[in-house]
């Protein structure tokens, strides 16, 4: 028989200091700074082995950004793109949520539309550019509707999933406490679906930023998408990169703001 002695516990005291030290390291790690530095480094090295015309370094990109920002153009473009995204996303939400609730609560309507949704959702917004221009004109409408389209399915499908995953117990208990069908919709179905709607809206925010470049490809006079297209036409690679970084930043910041607002305002709905 062997006798094995496992782990003699240590006093807690000496552990404390060690942890204290690593806390700053942990903070740096969690902030993602190292990840950023790593990416910048890779970008810098890659640009050294290339030409600025093809792959501008992070520094040259910054110079380009300052150039285009100095007369306020960059911020104007950001504003335009942002407002288009916001308008399209809001409108998308206003259309898709009631639609999702409708097909979620009504079996007949669901049977009617679900197959169609599962078909149309594979048609990319980009394929609709010409058609939307035809139908909605070359002004803001067609751009906004392209974004509405880009947000529609993800919000609808998430809302639908939310409605379908409400536990039967909740519906039965509302019924047995005397709630009418309409009251059940307002006071049970909608609140229970909010976390799903929120997730859908968050994903749709991402899709909106995907769609803005397409929306601003045709007949736009301003916007980050317009900037990227123009830079392509004249081969201003540094501005393409400025556009990429700005899009990433705008999406990232919107996402964080949205998540934060969700936590603050919809806390009771346990959004994720």
């Amino acid at each position, binding site marked *: 028989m062997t006798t094995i002695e496992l782990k003699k516990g240590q006093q807690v005291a000496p552990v404390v200091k060690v942890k204290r030290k690593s806390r700053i390291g942990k903070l740096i790690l969690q902030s993602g700074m190292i990840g950023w530095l790593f990416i910048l480094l890779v970008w810098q090295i890659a640009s050294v082995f290339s030409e600025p015309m093809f792959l501008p370094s992070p520094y040259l990109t910054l110079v380009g950004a300052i150039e285009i920002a100095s007369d306020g153009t960059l911020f104007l473009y950001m504003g335009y793109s942002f407002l288009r995204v916001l308008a399209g996303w809001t409108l998308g939400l206003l259309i898709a949520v009631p639609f999702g609730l409708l097909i979620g609560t009504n079996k007949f309507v669901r049977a009617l539309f679900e197959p169609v949704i599962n078909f149309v959702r594979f048609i990319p917004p980009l394929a609709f550019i010409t058609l939307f221009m035809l139908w909605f004109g070359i002004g803001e409408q067609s751009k906004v509707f392209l974004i509405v389209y880009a947000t529609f399915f993800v919000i609808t499908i998430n809302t639908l999933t939310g409605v379908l995953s409400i536990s039967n*117990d909740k519906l039965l208990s*509302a019924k*047995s*406490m005397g709630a009418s069908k309409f009251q059940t919709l307002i*006071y049970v179905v909608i609140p229970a679906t*909010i976390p799903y709607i929120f997730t859908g809206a968050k994903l749709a925010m991402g899709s909106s930023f995907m769609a803005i470049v397409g929306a601003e490809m045709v007949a736009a006079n301003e916007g980050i998408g317009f900037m990227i297209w123009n830079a392509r036409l004249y081969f201003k690679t540094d501005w393409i990169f400025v556009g990429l970084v700005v899009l990433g930043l705008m999406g990232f910041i919107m996402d964080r703001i949205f998540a934060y607002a969700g936590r603050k305002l919809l806390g*009771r709905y*346990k959004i994720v």
Partner: protein
Amino acid sequence: MLNTITEEAIVIKNGAKTFQTDIENPTYVLKNVDLSIKKGEFYVLLGPSGCGKSTLLNIIAGFLDLSVGELHIVTSREENRDGRGFVFQSADSALFPWLTVEENISFGLKMKKVPPEKRKKIANTFIKLTGLLGHAKKFPDNLSGGMKQRAQLARVLANEPEILLMDEPFGALDAMTRRTMQNELIRIWKETNKTVIFVTHDIQEAILLGQKIGIMSVGPNSRIETAYDVKLPYPRDITSIDFNNHYKQVQAHFEDFSI
């Protein structure tokens, strides 16, 4: 016909239930169910897993329809739905997590458009009755399992149902909490004078709570095999000799139809 059962709150005559709709000779989950529960009685439905206890309770609640037979519910209410309150096994799935405990409890009152002050007053009564004082502003997710089940009970009671239907309400609680809740339930039942149907498959729980125990047979074609009377005073002591004699008798029933 009903004149013979005026004392009764719930009566089922020759009830049967099948979930199959499109075959000629369906299998019945429940068959030849006869049941008669007196006003104010604490009735326990005891039976093995899957025999159809929940199905029967859902039929009494009006959530499901009988396939064959008669169901009579007798209450003093105009609207029958309100007459029956249902406590689900899982408080997690039944409570509304986006409402505070108090808001959950007021839900039924709000649906009936009771004014806010009155709602608050009634909610408070049941918060006190179920021992939830100090937890009114919390959300269900921040409560322990026992607390959640108290909140669900309070929510149902706030609608002042005459009949309380409970489907294994303490099945998911740990042993100690369960014991406490059982005692609380008896206290509340005595105070409020409800007719209670309580579903369980715990023999000890059945004897601890019930005035009458409806012992169900194994499914399909499950029915109420025996209605067993428990003539012990409350509160009951599970370590007493009388209690354990009852336990042995009920247990014997189950060995009879060998589960």
